[in-house]
């Protein structure tokens, strides 16, 4: 079966820009307009965040956007409702990213079915451990043609990176440094040893670098070490600026690309 993530990496081997935003932020009905605007501005892949009350791996920016999105009324059923016609409007690869508990309550199988139905290509659930995924859910995800994307960090041993690589398809999400999202500790792209180590492993899957990527400089550096990079918190901050969604998105993407 075709998967838009796979096709993307085949068609465009370098300089990919993936953008994360929290569904339901800044306003409940912004989900589809943000997706379409990002595509229009040449973004390659979009991660749609499913807000959670207790986002352990996230820094203050995404915590706050999640709180606001939840207050706005965002839920998983609401998100699927918003996305039901998205494939009539765009073919950009779409990944849903969130925490395990809301997905468990929705029902993992039902979630996979619905995701496939609206045309989602991949899923990231940072707190679903690899071992549980392989034991309980892998078959379900594959059956619904969903790439389950896993994170690796500078502390992940080679053996585990290979294990992750063998159980996933789509891409490997390289966390740039040990941190929660949106960290501005300046170490975002300093870990060149780690990036090279992973590159030399010649994994089955391509990799993207995320966490701490926030401007043209960090984006370009990340692109030297992987197929591209993922931006989240910096984009959420840009959405909070004065001005329309269109203006904010256009100027942000231009700043990153140039």
């Amino acid at each position: 079966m075709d998967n838009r993530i796979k096709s993307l990496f085949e068609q465009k081997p370098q300089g990919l820009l993936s953008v994360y935003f929290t569904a339901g932020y800044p306003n409940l009905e912004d989900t589809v307009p943000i997706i379409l605007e990002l595509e229009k501005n040449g973004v390659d892949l979009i991660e749609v965040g499913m807000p959670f009350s207790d986002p352990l791996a996230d820094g203050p920016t995404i915590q706050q956007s999640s709180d606001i999105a939840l207050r706005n009324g965002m839920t998983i059923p609401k998100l699927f409702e918003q996305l039901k016609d998205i494939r009539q409007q765009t073919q950009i690869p779409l990944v849903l990213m969130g925490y395990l508990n809301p997905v468990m309550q929705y029902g993992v199988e039902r979630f996979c079915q619905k995701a496939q139905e609206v045309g989602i290509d991949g899923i990231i659930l940072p707190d679903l451990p690899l071992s549980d995924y392989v034991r309980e859910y892998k078959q379900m995800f594959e059956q619904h043609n969903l790439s389950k994307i896993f994170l690796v960090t500078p502390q992940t041993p080679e053996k585990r990176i290979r294990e992750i690589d063998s159980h996933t398809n789509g891409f490997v999400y390289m966390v740039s440094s040990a941190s929660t999202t949106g960290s501005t500790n300046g170490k975002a792209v300093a870990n060149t040893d780690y990036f090279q180590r992973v590159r030399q492993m010649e994994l089955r899957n391509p990799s993207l670098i995320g966490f701490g990527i926030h401007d043209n400089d960090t984006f370009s550096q990340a692109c030297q070490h992987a197929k591209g990079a993922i931006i989240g918190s910096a984009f959420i901050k840009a959405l909070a600026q004065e001005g329309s969604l269109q203006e904010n998105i256009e100027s942000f993407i231009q700043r990153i690309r140039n």
Partner: protein
Amino acid sequence: MKYSVDENGFYGKFGGAYIPEMLHPNVEELRENYLKIMQSPDFQEELQVLLKDYVGRPTPLYFAKRLSAKYNTQIYLKREDLNHTGAHKINNTVGQVLMAQRLGKKRIIAETGAGQHGVATATVCALMNLECIVYMGEVDILRQAPNVARMKMLGATVVPATSGSRTLKDATNEAIRDWINNPEDTYYIIGSVVGPHPYPDMVARFQAIISEEMKWQLKEKTGNENPNYVVACVGGGSNAAGAFYHYLDTPEVKLVAVEAAGMGVESGESAATSVLGKEGVIHGSRTLLMQTEDGQVTEPYSISAGLDYPGVGPMHAHLFESKRAIFENITDEEALQAVLELTRLEGIIPALESAHALAALSRIGAKPDDVVVVNLSGRGDKDLSTYLDRFQLNG
């Protein structure tokens, strides 16, 4: 039925390690080493000396004569309130700080609700000359001011958790985020039987000293090491885990876990997880969890900061589901009455948390000859301003 943890870190269907990849190396390191370290002779020797000479163990098992007369049964209080720092929490922090040293960690982080775990952590860090950072909800900082002062006095940095309900759950989130950001040199001393495997099992083992002592103390006093009831309050559940531990496989001992009903289970202001929760994942563990239909964690409420938690340790979730333990819940008002009752009958001012266990004495239906042990997990010093207010003893 097996009540201890299995090789994969589960109690029945509860437990596990639902953590982001960033925490995997740390949790894995601990999982591989904790039993080996805990069972090593030099560790045990150091731990036993500290428990005896520093913590002040064994804690007394006190026959509460006037309380027994009131409830027409034989009530013993396990005096964890007499531990150094005033609660059972230090049993665990003494153990974990030795664990951190064995693993070569230099920086200690912790979360705290009532502040007892924070104080117990700050205390052992002072003792071992380790840097200590304690995360505490903003709301709890206000209602447990004496413990905040103690932590500062001990040289710890107290960082307010300002997200969510600004209580224990949020302090735990912040501690976990700190650990993600400091993966090399930092050890996270979790204060309860919660979190990813192996924490629930490790903390239960460190607290198991409570029931270990209860057994020989009861044997001395009653001729039988087994009581009819063991009663303990449950927030995350560490004092209950310790009080139940050596009785888990003795079915004739009834285990009573007492949760905080807050303003009442149906009021929307409660922390009675076994009644209000369903299966979910919080802080790295699959357990019973108070949550909305959409899987968002509900903000709990209790007058007691130590019980104000939307989940419960996976061991307790399993004890609930398997019906091995009886779960009761007690409102703020009932707990306050129990505080006054123990204070005036026995001259012991209990912590608000422990008062929930005491208040359940009227519920369990103990017979005149039954032996009931209540785990008096902490003393009430930290709650005095609440007590003075509520009992109108000011001025």
